[in-house]
């Protein structure tokens, strides 16, 4: 009964379960970046650079693991050696 209602396209819960994931991921990206501060370059440049690289890499190669791995490595290099 509950499921029949939720299964119909017009139900509120059905609608939410279809759109909420996209908004939730948006929220999570912001959540992960919440500690960015624009007071000094070291506190926002590594993140922005890495995210730009990830976006570009993912649009180019469309390989999830590659994008995640390379992006993380880039960030770690930036944070450990460039913007100490």
């Amino acid at each position, binding site marked *: 009964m509950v499921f029949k209602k939720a299964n119909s396209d017009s139900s509120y819960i*059905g609608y939410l*379960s279809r759109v909420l994931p996209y908004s939730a991921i948006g929220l999570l990206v912001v959540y992960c970046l919440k500690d960015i501060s624009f007071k000094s370059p070291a506190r926002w440049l590594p993140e922005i650079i890495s995210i730009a690289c990830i976006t570009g890499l993912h649009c180019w190669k469309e390989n999830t*693991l590659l994008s995640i791995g390379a992006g993380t490595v880039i960030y770690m290099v930036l944070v450990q050696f460039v913007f100490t």
Partner: protein
Amino acid sequence: MLLNLRNGFFNYLNRAENMNEKITALKAAFPHTIPVLTGFIFLGTAYGILMNSKGYGVGWTILFSLMVFAGSAQYLAITFLTSVFNPVYALLMTLMINARHIFYGISLLDRYKDAGRIKPYLIFGLCDETFSIVCSTNPPEGVNRNWFYFFITLMNHSYWVIGSAIGVMLGSIVSFNTNGLDFVLTALFTVIFVGQWKTQKDRKPAVIGVLCSVICLAVFGQSNFIIPSMIAILAALTLFRKAYRDQIKPCGEKESLQ
């Protein structure tokens, strides 16, 4: 006594048949899980290394992966573990991030209908990858459907646990500067976001998500913006509901990581 022997013999045949049934299902299911194998081993290892760098050992890591089995939520959980204890936040965040599983469950009502005793495990073990495999494949002729689904679920689950175990053990053996490793979480969500951005025709939910969060972050500060963001997102989505009722593609069609 002959009757006992005969019954015993038939029992043996039955059990052998059941065993055969399961082995056949296992063999049929395995090839479908190979892509997941590589993905989960890699991500699980990264997770394990991260856990190790935060001071959690093999036991905790394996327990998490065994009992939670939700990649992005587990990564997020690390941040919960290392900050102020706030179970309500944890509950709400986990709910938000895994809300899509509501849709998976509903979509699989039919396929899992006759699963009987293994249904609870099938439900527990449902994740993006398992969902896409179950949705898009049918067991070959002669293979028991329920065991087929069971082994897909089980194998994906075990890849994740094994990956985590490898990671946490690797982390304690190999010492390297793990500063910045937490970024893997940001990377994961960014990749999912970009992937979804490209495939969804209507990007309003994604824009709503980011915009509401950024505004609330600016207004309420780092430690208090989550709940207002969720409320704002829900409000905005409800407001926009009429505008794009039929345009959203169900989330499960595209591969995304837990």
